[in-house]
């Protein structure tokens, strides 16, 4: 599905953990901080809940970028969930790069409940970077097998 007539607006899917990053994003909202509207947020209890399947599925469905935000290392509500996330994203980045998807499209950040500004900066920065990178290859190519 190409978007020749529409201007490209990056679509970011954000998985935010309930205890830290979602709270931080919420704080940004209640503080009336302005930021790019390109992120669609899914709240999970822990960033460690994010199954690699969700990420691959999100790319398949046309996400230009995926943000996983969790608690800072050492602060995870469930002790070690974010360490799992760290490892997962590390391997997944290699994997998607091998599959031809720019690994910068997959981003992991630590955002605490108080870091509303940090959250805003991340979203703005990521949106800009994705504008430069262009739409995800999953959006641009039809199935060439037929």
């Amino acid at each position, binding site marked *: 599905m190409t978007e020749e007539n529409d201007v490209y607006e990056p679509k970011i899917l954000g998985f935010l953990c309930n205890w830290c990053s979602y709270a931080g994003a919420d704080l940004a909202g209640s503080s009336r901080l302005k930021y790019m509207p390109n992120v669609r947020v899914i709240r999970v209890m822990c960033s460690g809940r994010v*199954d690699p*399947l969700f990420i691959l*599925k999100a*790319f398949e469905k046309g996400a230009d970028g995926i943000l996983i935000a969790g608690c800072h*290392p050492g602060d995870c509500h469930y002790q070690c969930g974010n360490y799992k996330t760290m*490892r997962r994203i590390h391997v997944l980045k290699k*994997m998607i790069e*091998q599959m*031809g998807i720019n690994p910068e499209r997959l981003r992991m950040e630590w955002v605490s409940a108080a870091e509303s500004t940090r959250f805003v900066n991340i979203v703005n920065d990521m949106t800009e970077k994705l504008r430069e990178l262009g739409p995800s290859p999953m959006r641009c190519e039809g199935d060439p097998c037929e």
Partner: protein
Amino acid sequence: MILVSKGKIAFYWAGSCGGCEVAIVDLDEMLFDVLENFDIVFWPCAMDAKYSDVEAMDNSEIDVCFFNGCIRNDENKEIAEMLRAKSKIMIAFGSCSHLGGIPGLGNLSTKDETLDYVYKRSKSVVNDEGTIPQNSTDEHGNFIGIPELREYVKALDDVVEVDYYIPGCPPPVDVIKTALLALISGEVPPRKEVLAPDRTVCHECKKEKRDMAVKSIKRIYQLDDLDPKRCLLEQGILCMGPATREGCGAACLTANMPCTGCMGPPSMSELSENCEQGARMVSAITSMTDVADEKNSKEEEIKTALDEIRDPVGVMYMYSMPKSILRRRRKDVSDRD
């Protein structure tokens, strides 16, 4: 489907290695049972029926067709469609027709990149004209057609409707025997099922499992003192067991080698596409890796433990790339080359 008289059975291979055919030959005495219950009407590996004989059959004349091999070229697709029309039951037999198989790794390149390397750039090739196999006409004016490679490899159910799947590379003999007995007796499970048990290889593996914390991943040649009695994952060897369906008796593990995932993933997990094996393994291996003192370890150390997963796609999608969520290599517009 209950066979009142001798049924008709066919075995065919597409983009395959022939291993699935030999697996049938290796049934040994059970071949006599097959022959008692079926007429083998088409089996190019072992019998002389030709495509024209199949074309001449009525639709649904064949009771069961065991189809192995991936769909790599136009001929594979045409014959798959022909056999589908002529068969009541179509079984995707073996990893290649089930998931794309090892030839599915071809999806990391384009068809042109593959042809270019094989015919022009490999070391021993002497090909100054840059010839690539293609339709041609000889000096007498005879047209010689040759099937084209398709752009990417596909599994059987990407091109025709499949009734059952028998996984494995090749399918283990017990799995084949169980499936054949079901077909002969008529007591077949509901359509679309994978005809194999549904837990993971870890359940069948007899290696000793102790604490399940993997300190760091290693390549098998880096471990001089591999303990053959202990779980290979615990020793840092990336074994696909946790993401792979059982049914083979953990055969490779009995040889002290890690599972490579040939049976494909088990069906459990409500979000799984049923065939997304790589994501399963990423999840498993990153859950199992555990630095002793995470809180005081730097992020870098945690990542370094995984460094020896140098080719995650090749290891975790060895048999299942065409049926994975991403299916094939993409061209990111941000690529500068």
